[in-house]
């Protein structure tokens, strides 16, 4: 795998990464992974296996205790577990925040924020405050905020975990459409096997703490994937393999 990293240009490459917290907890041991442009990689693992730590390392919020983290992206976005919207700002102003912090002129950032809200299907909701929006819509605003920076690399930390099943399936379809349109490289954390398989080009399975990558399962289907794909025997067979890998190592 290391040789592969040397040969190809990756958007994100982790090599032999270990993360030990000051408390002594080892969150990750010897994790290597790489994501190329246009790839959408999902990571599944039992809760507390260090999945979120993996994302925090990739985003630069944490630094690795040992090993290397290389990011070659012009812009990286991060989608949080909760929508993490600023309650006092409207949907539009929440999306605008990114441009504000980066010093983008008002007109430009407002226009881009509008376009991003449009992309996630929230045209007409620009002036609503988070409390006036449903859970699914709040998450859409959060996605818009991530997309407004036009990222090459997008990191997702179980963004749909708190949504109800119906909304969750809708959001998966939406995310797929957005991914196809925007062409960023994605790293998506989830604890849902079906979500992991449905969304990704490749599923990484992690073991319980300390987290390691124990299996890598490619997903063959082209995008766009119809929702009915979830009911096919092939889909069932693949989720079965992921579940089996999870079961062996949890």
């Amino acid at each position, binding site marked *: 795998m290391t040789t592969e990293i040397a040969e190809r240009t990756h958007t994100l490459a982790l090599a032999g990464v270990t993360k030990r917290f000051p408390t002594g907890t080892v969150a990750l041991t010897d994790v290597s992974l790489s994501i190329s442009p246009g790839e959408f990689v999902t990571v599944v693992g039992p809760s507390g296996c260090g999945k979120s730590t993996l994302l925090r390392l990739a*985003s*630069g*919020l944490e630094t690795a205790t040992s090993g290397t983290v290389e990011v070659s992206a012009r812009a*990286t976005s*991060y989608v*949080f*577990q*909760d929508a*993490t919207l*600023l*309650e*006092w*700002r*409207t949907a539009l102003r929440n999306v605008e*925040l*990114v441009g*504000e*912090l*980066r010093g983008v002129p008002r007109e430009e950032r407002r226009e881009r924020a509008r376009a991003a809200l449009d992309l996630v299907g929230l045209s007409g909701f620009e002036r*609503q*405050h*988070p*409390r*006036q929006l449903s859970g699914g819509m709040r998450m859409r605003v959060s996605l818009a905020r991530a997309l407004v920076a036009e990222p090459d690399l997008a990191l997702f930390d179980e963004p749909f975990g708190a949504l109800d099943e119906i909304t969750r399936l809708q959001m998966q379809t939406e995310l797929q459409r957005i991914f196809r349109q925007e062409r960023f490289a994605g790293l998506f954390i989830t604890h849902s096997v079906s979500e992991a398989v449905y969304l990704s080009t490749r599923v990484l399975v992690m073991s319980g703490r300390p987290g390691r990558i124990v299996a890598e399962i490619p997903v063959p289907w082209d995008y766009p994937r119809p929702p009915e794909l979830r009911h096919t025997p092939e889909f069932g067979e693949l989720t079965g393999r992921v579940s089996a890998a999870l079961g062996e190592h949890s």
Partner: protein
Amino acid sequence: MTTVESRVETPAPQAAEQPRAGAGALLRRAAPIVGALVGFLAAWYAVTYLVLPARQRFLLPPPHEVYGGVFSNPQLMAPMMEALGRSFAVALVGLVIAVVLGIAYAVVMSQWSWAEKILYPYAVILQTIPILALVPLIGIWLGYSFLARVAVCVIIALFPMIANTLFGLQSASAAAHDLFTLNKATRWQRLMKLQFPAAVPSIFTGLRNAAGLSVIGAIVGDYFFQQGAPGIGGLLRVYTQRLQMEALLTSVTLTALFGVVIFTIFAVLDRAVVGRWYGRVAR
């Protein structure tokens, strides 16, 4: 009295926004308030006429003598209202200073954890030290008039401002802070676009508490620092010394009403501003 109130709650705004149903509903809502007032007056009369023997009745004259006698007597009412006005000025100046100082103090503490470690104990000491212990010092340092009264006011009103503002500044979620970190926000941006806006509801909670306390502070200040024209607290002392029970009870009532009015103003302001802040525009 100066606890930090967390505001996770969003009291259902509908309750307040229901269309006015007829006079019946209004009556039903007013009934408990009127009932309590009637009960209070009845108890007062009972104490005056049934509990106190006739020769001690001057200790608690009946309500109609207290209020009837004083309100109809401009010689008593005029100085009382003037004094109330002076106390109001003290309370207002004290409150403004407490708000500015309190927010500044909390902002400094929120920016550096070492600053919080150093400064917070002093805020707590300010809160716990009895104002009586400080009165002689304040008098010696600031004289015995307006300035000293304001100082008492500030000392009493400051802590809830500090505590609530700090609580608010620290209330933004870790994820929200991560969002700012990932977008390379400066310290100033983080303060102005995240911490301060997140603190607005708590600041208003602090303001509400501080406003109520500033009234107490003004009256306590009047009471101790009697140089210059008297505030209502100064009159309280005079009436006590002369055993003018009617005037004393009336001025106590006025101070209570004064506090209620100030508290209500800030409670209404709080609801309006904080409601708007989160996008439920009360109409």
